[in-house]
């Protein structure tokens, strides 16, 4: 669930207020938005992706809020990581076909995973019978 908005980084653009699909945030009158309906947070990380100032941190547990200090968030290095990985604000790596260079591998890797599971299962069945 959304855990913290860093007011010192926030530019009060309110982009996250509209980007949050489940209406968790309320616009701050002249500052950072307010977490108003935490129970509606679906832990989708999309507010982080839409915050150009990297001012939002979403905790990993969608069942309940977790206590984490701003210092610990900053020390973790996770702030802004997701936005960086999506590449929304940076040039793609030189020589690549863009930020989605590896995306085509999703299907083949998924099938390979399923084949590994199928092979392992039939080997186990065979050894059980032996």
């Amino acid at each position, binding site marked *: 669930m959304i855990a913290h908005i860093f007011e010192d980084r926030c530019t009060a653009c309110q982009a996250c*207020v*509209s*980007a*949050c*699909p*489940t*209406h968790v945030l309320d*616009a701050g009158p002249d500052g950072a938005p307010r977490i108003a309906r935490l129970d*509606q947070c*679906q*832990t*989708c*990380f*999309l507010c982080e*992706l*839409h915050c150009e100032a990297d001012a939002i941190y979403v*905790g*990993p*547990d*969608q*069942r309940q809020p977790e206590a984490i200090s701003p210092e610990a968030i900053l020390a*973790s290095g*996770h702030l802004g*990581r*997701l936005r960086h*990985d*999506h590449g929304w604000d940076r040039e*793609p790596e030189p020589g*690549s*076909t*863009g*930020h*989605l*260079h*590896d*995306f*085509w*591998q*999703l*299907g083949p*890797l*998924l*099938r*390979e*995973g*399923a084949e*590994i*599971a*199928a092979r*392992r*299962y039939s080997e*186990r069945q065979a050894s059980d019978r032996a």
Partner: protein
Amino acid sequence: MTEEGIDLQADVLIIGGGMAACWAAIAAAQAGADVLLVDKGFVGTSGVTATGGPNHWWVAPEPGKREAAVEERHARSFGLAERHWMARIIEESWIALPTLARYYPFGGDGRGGTFYPGVRGPEYMRALRRYATDAGVRILDHHPALELLVHDDGSVAGAAGHGRLTGQSWRARAGAVIMATGGCAFRSGLIGSHGNTGDGLLMAAEAGAALSGMEFSVSYSLSPAWNSTRTLPYFAARFFDQDGRELDIPPPIGGEGAHLRALASAMLAGPVIADLSDAPDGLKPILRRIQPASPTPFERRGLDIFRDRFEIKLFGEGTVRGTGGLQVVDAHCQTSLSGLYAAGDSATRELVAGATSGGGAQNAAWALTSGRIAGAAAAARAKRDGRRLGAAARAVGQAGLRPAASPRPVDLKAVLPVVQHATIGYDDALWRSAPKLARARDALDGAWRLLADHDQGVGLDRGGLREHAAMIAAARWVTAAAHRRDESRGMHMRADRPATDAALASRLLTGGTDKVWTRFETPALQEAAA
């Protein structure tokens, strides 16, 4: 409605803001219509498209190839899909996806070409938003629809709802309306599905629309117990009980029912732990590059996804990766209501996937295709008949808006467990039986009566109330259809009727709010059963 509201009008009104809604809006605007799109959330982040990464059914138009793909998939549809619809979604996806290149950063296909079929959710929805805006579509974010407006002749005239950020009610009249509100995941916590509560199914059913295939709603996503993610990393997983004994779980592809039932049985007995160390070596270094959000919940808990073991859960997908939804009655994606079209997961996907899940290829291709077809048809209707602003239009929402008896507050927290038990509870859903379904029906009828008779929302509260009403209604249709279909077929698994009955190879319709009905689509079957 008491508070001050705004009046809107358009040629075509689209309700929803996922991929189906956007493709519909673009098609309608390109056909020359003035298009208004209202979404519950934000077009770009709301709905399961945004957090997903839909792969569209993709087959090149080479001799025999598409026919073979259709045959292969049709054979797994348990007799309920239509070959011409399947061929149509392959063709439409092939044509439409490349048109997104101005807005979506397609990458390579590893062989020097462009990779079109699979797209990453946040980028896909960002692209569709820009494409729609450039096409002239007016988008109203955070404007959930609460109910439909209907003409005296029964045709659909528009919708009414609430602006969550503005606090204003709205009422929109249009020459045609497209329902694209997605599926219903019954608040299971499934990634991206918080707003997917089946609102469109309820709104349409209140106006008299029929649904189809609601019994095909038994589908789950495996994820860590604390966060529903995409499932790519888990396909090669090994599973253990809490004492570290390895569990014998059939593989995830080719027998989904057996895989899910084995995992669910183990979970009913105690915690189940996953170990991903067997994942393909090629996946480990690039998971983050494919799906940045998949490793995130692990890293933020200090776990190494491919080394550390963790507890898992099955998140119910309901009709999202099930196939049930509004009945489609013609080649233009019209519902059984004149003037109301359906697109994406709010429509039945039996036409392209039958009794098995279309998630993985068909559902996205269907959402794109049904959106485009509905958009064009709605624009043509609006052009032909106009907006009919002179005709009276009545708001037809009931439960949560206009209680049947004296208003008093209802405890919504008590309602959800009843709904979830019946629809996504492992035992009730994966081992359906007549006695369990009868019990679920009675409990759900009670919940419905309580809400429909007494609850009345004001302002912002109306949204949450209608979501709960919609989930109860969807659960009642699921239960009624599962009860009526006295056999097992595809993802509809009846423990008391394990065999498939060749005589029941017909789609099953359901609907009604105060009184739920069911009816086989094939008339002969209907008479035989009566």
